């Protein structure tokens, strides 16, 4: 029998159980939980998982949902090949 897993973040393989564990260890800020578990740091950059993550954080910490902010979305918001950043910025203007 395969063990059932509830994935919150499919990109980085973070389960709801791992998130609960981190929150119960004392990490109550959305950025802290992101950094300790890696949720929202994969190819989708949190597009699919952020809402269930926020709901769980509200449930576990007892805070209202509107007090749970967002993780910081730094550029690039979509995956970009490393080589592109090495392109020269002299391609002319249009």
């Amino acid at each position: 029998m395969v063990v059932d897993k509830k994935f919150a973040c499919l990109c980085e393989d973070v389960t709801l159980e791992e998130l609960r564990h981190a929150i119960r260890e004392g990490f109550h800020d959305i950025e802290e939980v992101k950094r300790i578990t890696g949720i929202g740091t994969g190819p989708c950059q949190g597009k699919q998982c952020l809402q269930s993550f926020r709901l769980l954080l509200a449930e576990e910490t007892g805070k209202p949902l509107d007090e749970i902010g967002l993780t910081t979305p730094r550029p690039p918001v979509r995956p970009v090949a490393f080589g592109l950043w090495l392109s020269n910025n002299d391609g002319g203007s249009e």
Partner: protein
Amino acid sequence: MPAVRTCMTDAEPGMVVESERGFPSTRYDLLAALDHIFRHQLDYQRRFYWPAFMMPLYVAIVRRLAATSELPDKQVSFGPVRNVHCDVLIIGPCGSGSAAFEFLKNAGLNVVLADGARSSSRGSSRAIGYYEGGEVVVLTDRGLGLVTPRAILLATGIAESGLAIPNADLPGVLLPSALRVLASRGVVPGSRAVVVRNSDLLDSVTEDLETLQIRLVKNFPDPGNTRRIIGRHRVEAVDAAEVLGSTTRYGCDIVILLGARVPSVELAHQAGCKLVHMDGVWCLKVDEDFRTSVPSVFGCGSVTGLWDPKAQTASGEGAARSILKTLGGT
């Protein structure tokens, strides 16, 4: 992409799609034994740091176990970054953005659309970051572009989210847009579907299921009623909780998850625009003239919390009028 369950490549007809291999192969994965030994997850962050002298060995072995697959190695050449100056940059796939694009184009402005959609004539273009001074980097088929617009319209729309149901990572579990893409390409992913939802966006899914002649076996309006998805290599059934604690099994080969609609506010956040919390999600805050809290940045459509398609289109035109007024057009 090894060690993650998602990839960025669009599946197209004729393409052979394979999952990553385990050890020694995906089919006979010896590492699956770890799931049985550590029933409550293998917490490798805490389990493998003691005794300290073993750390180099742990790092060498455990990190390798996390990604045993290989990536194809190929030479790719990238073009130079192109600089683009324009009056208005419209970002996003939301229908309101297209309405604004038509309006501003007809008004004679130089408008660039970075919408994330692929078209045969224009290729694809996607805004990937907002930088200081109002510059936006756009990823196109030809490489990166640095767009310097006089005004930006954010019509970035919403993102679909999944639901955390046990085994929702099995092949055969789809989000509504995946079903729509398959329907548009004539690919039938199965014959019997179960829908699990906590949002009211059922109409388009029902339409796509009818187009593909897929039978809707069961519709769960509350994800709490579903215990788990059953299947070994792909979806085979869904177990649902009944009133007296018993379980009913619904046989199916597709599960469609309709999670919350989440406005894509990433670029707005980067630009420093104020957000507002509505219906449980963060939306872009705009005034009656569709201005955000950042000068020269406007917003319209579902990213501002408008769910009705007609209201979205109207907001696109309204925002276009407001931009025209600001830039001094007629």
